[in-house]
């Protein structure tokens, strides 16, 4: 017999335990949403499987010294198994006391089913101080929602949800905005209604926690990206103005993806699938996540079951990979976007092969608005002393108009980058005056990213110079011209200032940035101290008066 003990173990003896799961109570569903990747089997999790699953998770939590377990009640439509959902939640609470661990329960529902039994149970959970988190999938107002979220007979489902939204509000009362969120899925069919849907949720349904995330596997075109940008910009403006009116970060916190503004570190890998997170099927099998499970009829990604546990060898690629191992990982400034290893596996044959293209650009738009929001919050004094990687306009591929000026580079800057005919370019400011180039001999060109572009038009606006150019591929771009041949005296000075790192643009020298950040942190701290001193002084005055 071979003795392998002389060889070193390579991986941790106690690998990260699975304590957070999505539970496929049933794969059955009463809807057939157009973008759904599920198979709708009519299976149901039994009491025996459910109990064992919960014990398995608590045992893992105990072994790994994790404080709580997390059950995301998923399906299919989990409300089709609402009695089991209630039973298992109560069982988890009971076992939680035994194991001295917490329990987090989240229900992901299409919102069409809310039985009296469930209403009573949700009220009961609130009464005993263990409110259940609810995520309802609604894509927008009725006409938008009904395009994608349809019943088996292909009929719209909004009318089925409408009355339930009211019921949820009744059940949760003041807790609604803490424990309920609405999740809209953006697909090609509805992305043009992003802002409209956002407004609808906020103003008509009056839910505050909102999410809109683009479907990752959709083939997003430049046009969709532009539409997403336009929608996000409007939402951004609303959210920021809410923050200003309320002098609070709360509005930002409540909208995903803008809420990522408030988190410095999103961890390394894009998600915990196969690490601390997994999916448990109705018959007790364990898969890295539901998205992978539903696309794996051969069961190749099965990593274990709730009776015998997880095969470390089989989940190794998930437990060991790091964010930087993804094909876009090490170079992208925005590597903490919503990347999805399941989509990578399904579309590209490897969890590490990152789909980029349109989706990636959408994620960069998110990052751009997150950066802007961060800056805005810092300016308002709601966030202080933070350091994060702000993206340049070039990286984002987009300009956001005035709000973004702070980040403008001091050379040539993309104002609007679009493929297509010049007449399709929606200019930020429609009333620009410009002069056409008159003859070929007068045509000037500029070099952008090492490639020459012909200037078609030039104009001025508020003292700034803009031009419309055509590159070798025939693409039309609008650019701001700051420093190339023919600079005016004042612009030359600006350029010198820029080179010396004194202009406030994002191409400042590294050491200047660091220095400025330190100064900023110190002055923030000073400001805070002064405010505190004021408070102390006032208290002393009050005390003296009291005497």
């Amino acid at each position, binding site marked *: 017999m071979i003795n392998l003990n002389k*060889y070193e173990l390579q*991986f941790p003896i106690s690998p990260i335990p699975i304590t957070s799961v999505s539970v496929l109570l049933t794969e059955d569903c009463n809807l057939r949403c157009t973008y759904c990747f599920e198979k709708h089997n009519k299976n149901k999790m039994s009491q025996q499987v459910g109990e064992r699953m919960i014990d398995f998770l608590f045992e893992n939590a105990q072994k790994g010294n994790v404080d709580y377990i997390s059950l995301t009640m998923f399906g299919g439509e989990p409300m089709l198994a609402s009695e089991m959902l209630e039973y298992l939640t109560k069982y988890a609470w009971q076992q939680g006391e035994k194991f001295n661990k917490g329990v987090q329960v989240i229900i992901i529902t299409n919102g069409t089913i809310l039985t009296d039994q469930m209403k009573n149970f949700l009220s009961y959970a609130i009464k005993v101080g263990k409110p259940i988190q609810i995520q309802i999938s609604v894509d927008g107002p009725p006409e938008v929602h009904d395009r994608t979220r349809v019943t088996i007979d292909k009929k719209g489902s909004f009318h089925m949800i409408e009355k339930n939204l009211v019921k949820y509000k009744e059940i949760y009362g003041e807790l609604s905005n803490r424990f309920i969120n609405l999740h809209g899925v953006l697909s090609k069919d509805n992305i043009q209604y992003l802002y409209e849907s956002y407004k609808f949720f906020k103003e008509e349904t009056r839910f505050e926690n909102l999410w809109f995330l683009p479907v990752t596997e959709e083939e997003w075109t430049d046009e969709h990206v532009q539409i997403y940008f336009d929608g996000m910009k409007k939402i951004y403006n609303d959210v920021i103005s809410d923050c200003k009116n309320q002098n609070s970060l709360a509005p930002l916190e409540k909208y995903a993806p803008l809420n990522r503004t408030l988190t410095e570190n999103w961890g390394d890998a894009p998600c915990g699938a196969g690490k601390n997170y997994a999916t448990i099927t109705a018959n007790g099998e364990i898969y890295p996540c539901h998205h992978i499970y539903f696309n794996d009829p051969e069961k*190749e990604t099965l990593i274990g079951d709730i009776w015998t546990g997880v095969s470390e060898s089989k989940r190794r690629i998930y437990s060991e990979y790091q964010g930087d191992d993804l094909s876009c990982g090490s170079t992208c400034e925005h590597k903490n976007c919503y990347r999805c290893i399941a989509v990578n596996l399904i579309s590209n044959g*490897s969890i590490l092969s990152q789909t980029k293209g349109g989706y990636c650009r959408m994620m960069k738009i998110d990052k751009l608005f997150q950066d802007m929001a961060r800056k805005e919050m810092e300016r308002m004094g709601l966030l202080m002393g933070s350091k994060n990687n702000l993206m340049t306009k070039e990286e984002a591929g987009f300009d956001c108009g005035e709000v973004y000026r702070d980040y403008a580079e001091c050379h040539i800057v993309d104002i609007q980058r679009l493929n297509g005919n010049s007449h399709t370019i929606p200019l930020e400011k429609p009333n620009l005056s410009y002069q056409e180039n008159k003859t070929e001999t007068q045509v000037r060109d500029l070099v952008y990213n090492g490639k020459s572009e012909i200037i078609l038009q030039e104009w001025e606006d508020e003292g700034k110079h803009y031009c419309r150019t055509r590159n070798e591929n025939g693409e039309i771009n609008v650019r701001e011209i700051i420093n190339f041949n023919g600079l005016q005296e004042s612009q030359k000075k600006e350029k010198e200032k820029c080179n010396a790192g004194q202009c406030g643009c994002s191409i400042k020298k590294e050491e200047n940035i660091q220095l400025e950040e330190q100064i900023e942190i110190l002055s923030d701290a000073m400001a805070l101290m002064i405010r505190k001193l004021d408070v102390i002084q006032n208290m002393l005055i009050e005390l003296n008066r009291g005497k």
Partner: protein
Amino acid sequence: MKERYVIHVTKKCNCNCLYCYEKDKMSTYTWEEVKELIDGIVKYNKSFGVEFLGGEPAMAFHLIQQSYEYLESMNDIFVSDYVITTNSTILTEEMLDFLKTNKKVYWSASLDGTKYMNQLRVFKEPSNNGAPQNTYDVVVDNLKKLLYNIDIDRIHVHMTTHPYNVAFIDRGVGHLYSLGIRHIGIGTVESTIKIGREYAEDFISQLDIVSKKIINGTYQNLKIDLFEWIKPKEDKRSYLFNSEGKLIGESYGRVENDIVSNSNYKTVLGTSPLQNMIYEIREYVHLRHKENLNEKRIR
């Protein structure tokens, strides 16, 4: 034991496998360089096997053809077989014709089992969605073409195993078997991904399952390289560099008086930090298969 010479024909490759050990991904070779190596080989040795390696050798297929024709034209030289070690993503009509005509040429495709197991083998150029694609689909298409056109015994698949697919070896073998492959080589990633005891345990237990399935007839007529034959421990892999420091060829150090000891090429002995462990587990698997066979005979 007969010597095998490895002839490098290009260092360029259209893939970017995550465990690739190759540092030089640029060099190309002229016919003069290859011919000089061949002339050096035949000066001392008259009977041997040849392996074409890259980079991706299919990207310099003309050099393979030229080498083959040159060697076959020598009356006093016997080359037992020519193996093209390829990622199998490139297969032109011209290549297929060459393989159809020349029966001593073998195709050794790198494919790590199922598509899921092959996750670390990806193309260099990303596809339209910006992601490097798994090579599996293209390789399987090409294997199907080859299986249709040439003798099944001349098509080998080499599965590289590493800590992220070793637990699936049996599944991978079964899958390749179902595709019609009957010759499978099982390799181990040596320097670019760390391996340890867990890998060794999985390697042994998975190949024991495969061994039993061959014996019980599940995988009839399947040949797994290390069940049949184990590379001798005495093999001394020598790398031959020309005066410019460019890697030209390799030998296994099985004959004493040949190009390695006599030529102007600089010779470097290949070592791998894990070679003892890898040898030990391979030898164990090899012997275990023999035991399984004996047990069956006794019963």
